[in-house]
């Protein structure tokens, strides 16, 4: 329903007509609302723990490497915390160390223990989207045309290099190489959690020539097709060859990647209950788990506050359930759940403040 509305709206937008009347938030109003949705204290603690003085956002749960995802999350949270200095710091590192590819995309991984630090020149499309999205917001919010220009060229590179057509559907390749139909026997392979739905409005503003609305629609369709096994949850990596199925060579699991999907949907205002139902069912206890998709049985419990915050955000959005007091307080654990925690708090403050 919302997806359809959104698509119509996007078409109208393309024709240059404002879309707010249709009731889907697309505008600067939402962006400015995001600014300030993370407190100075929260962001200060996050920076203290994960952001180095040189602007590198460290994934401490992953051998201390950085990646475009961590840099992109850092930049997005800096916007949410209204911290232009922190943003500039992280962007400086991102640009000089990672935004190196000839095609204008960023190399996805930066390893402090390797020399040169870039050991794999491939990109990760969600990281590029986060960076472009954050740059676009920062350019508008702080009136920095340099950010906007950089955001625009990155958006165009994402469009050129990672959007593909499959069975009449617009899909996002997780990387410029290695995932396409031609690259793998079970290609194309997608990662359903790489669709950062909230970014597409901004990307459309930056690069109106690309049909981002269709990419969004493709992402929603991928989510519907990705429901696997008794739980109906999506796998981390999905092959779209033939009948969609978990991609070869990856565990058939719902896991760390896919856990952010409800968060991304809700942050984009895509709160359709049917699409969120499997997550709600699986997280009824309030604590998400890794799920074996063949059996539907939960495996490792993901008990860190950040993961529980994702569940709390879902119950808040669907049932207006109050966010537990323990989760309203942010204190950093590991990089990834801490990031999800702040994105969840930011979401609830923007859209569902009654849950607080």
């Amino acid at each position, binding site marked *: 329903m919302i997806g359809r509305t959104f698509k119509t709206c996007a078409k109208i937008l393309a024709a240059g007509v404002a879309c707010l009347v249709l009731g889907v938030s697309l505008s600067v109003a939402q962006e400015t609302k995001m600014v300030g949705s993370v407190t100075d204290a929260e962001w200060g603690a996050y920076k203290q723990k994960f952001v180095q*003085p*040189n602007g590198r956002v460290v994934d401490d749960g992953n051998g201390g490497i950085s990646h475009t995802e961590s840099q992109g999350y850092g930049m997005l949270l800096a916007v949410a915390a209204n911290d232009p*200095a922190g943003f*500039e*710091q992280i962007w400086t590192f991102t640009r000089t160390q990672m935004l190196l590819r000839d095609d204008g995309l960023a190399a996805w991984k930066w390893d402090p223990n390797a020399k*040169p630090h870039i050991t794999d020149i491939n990109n990760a499309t969600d990281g590029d989207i986060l960076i472009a999205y954050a740059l676009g917001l920062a350019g508008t919010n*702080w009136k920095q*045309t340099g*950010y906007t220009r950089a955001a625009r060229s990155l958006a165009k590179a994402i469009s050129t290099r990672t959007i593909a057509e499959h069975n009449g559907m617009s899909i996002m390749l997780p990387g410029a190489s290695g995932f396409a139909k031609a690259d793998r026997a079970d290609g194309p392979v997608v990662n359903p959690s790489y669709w950062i739905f909230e970014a597409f409005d901004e990307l459309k503003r930056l690069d109106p020539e690309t049909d981002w609305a269709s990419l969004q629609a493709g992402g929603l369709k991928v989510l519907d097709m990705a429901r696997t096994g008794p739980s109906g949850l999506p796998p981390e990596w999905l092959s779209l060859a033939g009948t969609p199925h978990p991609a070869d060579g990856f565990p058939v699991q719902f896991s760390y990647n896919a856990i952010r999907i409800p968060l991304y949907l809700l942050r984009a205002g895509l709160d359709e209950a049917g699409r969120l139902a499997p997550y709600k069912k699986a997280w009824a206890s309030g604590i998400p788990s890794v799920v074996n998709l063949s059996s539907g049985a939960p495996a490792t419990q993901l008990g860190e506050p950040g993961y529980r915050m994702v569940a709390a955000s879902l119950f808040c959005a669907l049932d207006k359930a109050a966010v537990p007091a323990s989760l309203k307080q942010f204190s950093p654990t590991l990089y990834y759940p801490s990031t999800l925690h702040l994105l969840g708090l930011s979401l609830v403050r923007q859209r569902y403040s009654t849950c607080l």
Partner: protein
Amino acid sequence: MPVSRIAIAVVVSGLAAGYLVSGGSPDARDVQDTRPVGSGRADPLYTGSLPRGRVLMAQAEGASAGADAAPGTAPAAGDAPKPDLTALRYFSRQGDQRRVDAEIARLRLLYPGWSPPDNLNEPEQVGDPELDRMWQLFADGKYAEARSAVAARRAADPRWTPPEDLTARLNEAEGRARLMNASDAKQWETVLQVAAEVPNLLTCADPESLWRVGEAFANTDRADRARDAFQYVLKNCDDAGVRLATVQKALAVLDIARVDQLLTLERKGADGKSEFETVRADIVRSKIGRAAETNQTAAAADLSMLENVARTGTSADDPLVLGWYYLRQNHADQALTWFQMATSREDTAKSAEGQVLALSALGRNQEAEQVAYPARTKSDDMLKAYRIVATALLATDPAPRLEAGVLARTADELGRAREASGAQAVGWYSYNTNQIGTAIQWFTTALGWDPNDEPSAYGLALSYQNQKDRAGFNRILQQWGSRSQRIADLAVDPRRRRSAAPPVAIPAPKISTAQIAPPAVRDPVQTGGISGSISRASDAIRAERAAAAAAYTPSRVQAAASVPAPPQPIAPAMVRETVRETVSEPAPRAPRAMSREDLASSMLDDFSEPVRAPREVTVTQVNQPAVRGAKGPSGCPLARNPTTAANRGWCLMELERPMEAIAAFDVAIQTGTGQVKEDAAYGKALANLRAGLTGNAAVAATEAAQSPRRSVELSVQILTQRAIASYRDEKYAETIIALNERSRYVPEQNDLMMMRGWAYFNLRRYSDAQRIFTAVSKTGDAAGMRGLVAIGEVTGRIKD
């Protein structure tokens, strides 16, 4: 050249001010901000005024930017901007004399005629500790923090903008970091983009950036621009170490011709020594390496220098370079010596491969196999080389005497390769050593891997005939008769078929079939058109196995000498030729119909090099009627009637006077009839051929109806010459066309196959060339191997 001279002139006259003026816009974090305002050139990346490095970058587009841009870069004397002294004052107040000196040097380069004020240490009117902190962060290389401090202050005070100098210096420092990172990640376009955006990097103060830019140009097929980058250093920079390193860097990425251009900028020291003396060996090594790659002859002085270095040194690299060079120069014996030296110093896949190729080129396939076998696991190339050598070894004629172990392992490895050519080779070896049952197995296997492998079908047909297995033979005939003339011919008259091994049983000691038994054909789909025959043939195979087991004699295959030699070489690629000959001339060793043509092609140069044109081809021996009668001044009979005219023509041909012969034959054609006229037209065509007038020869051949045999012969001759002439003129596509036409009449022998191979090679149709060279090398002809080496080197280089 003029462009770069102007470029340098721009740099040394310091007309760089335009950049600084435009480079420091308040929002200069974005690299695009550093672009000067455009001056109307089409390419936005390189528009506008072009200071120093920017000129170098401007040339990247191949536009005549230098000449146009140079005047544009000179601001009128009065508008020369004043240098920003913030950094200088800051460093001076800090007492950082090293940075003060560097900053003064930098500003002097940018602003000729400027000299530093002498009140540097006096406090400025108002202190700005926050800005001082930003400079300190910059000085400490903490660029992200400096940026962050700028952003924080701008957020707090929207009216504040950072000093242009700070922004420009941060842009440069970050640009440099990004350039190095992109270069490390081999993102050459990004390297060049950054260099264009931050051209002030490209000065003698930062040779590393210049080298990286040169490397990026070289890796994006802009060799002249790459040379310009290195040339810039040698023309403008004085540091001896930097100059030496520049030559070494250039050697790694530039071709020899361009390196030589750079070497003309060599300077002589006070001691009279040339500055690049110490890297002379590197230069020579690189030159010879390149000569090997491009198959050019290296200078004798260079060779003897490197040979000395190689002999006296301990490194395996120098002998390796020499080995590859000599191998490419067709001095396989010398190559072998160097490869052996390299191996003795460091036993690597490359040194083993070199030895194997050299031995194989010398026709010493057995030794090559012995070296290759233990080394085959060292690299994929080595494994390929092993398989090729093994195939060539087995296809050698006469069949070599092989240790049972050697035979077993070659068969095993070729079986593992699952390529029809390898299985076919084992098939022929078995056939040649009179192990017909085993041959049947291998040919069947080969057909399983490639159902269209006609030589294997032919081998199978011969084998069945030999075994008097009429059913087996008929199956092959049924499947192949319409596709292969020679297989069809086998059925026409069994007496005509080549008897590879006499039907009479001569007790040839055998290796057990088990030892060289082919692997089972695993994939039924692959057997394709012959799947039916496989199952039916299995009975025969079982029978043969039983027979072989009974006749088992360990250890050795009898040398070819004691097995009655087949009348013709049996190497697969030669088989067609052999058969045709046998069919048309059943008598033993009858003079071959193609003698002239053979002669012509025997005079073809060995096509072992891709570029060398074959020598002039002349037709010397002609099947000609006997010459008799009155003789003219030339000693040849005078043309009194058509017959004597023709005789005169033949006589003149013998005297190598083809033009006169043409005239004589003309008389005979015009006045003669019947056989005389036909002979004369034939003679005229041959005379034209000898004179190199291929086109005329084709016309002459039509002046009288020729017998089918002569007609074919002439066509073959004409097409051969046409192919040779085209090749000589480097018209490779036409060479192929001529050879294709020719192959409709007669099979291609090795020298022409090599010509075809090199023609494909020159057309960069490497896979076609590889197919041809492989086929030739499988006949045991080393020329094929050399072709494969050349392809390996070229395609290897492309992949690199």
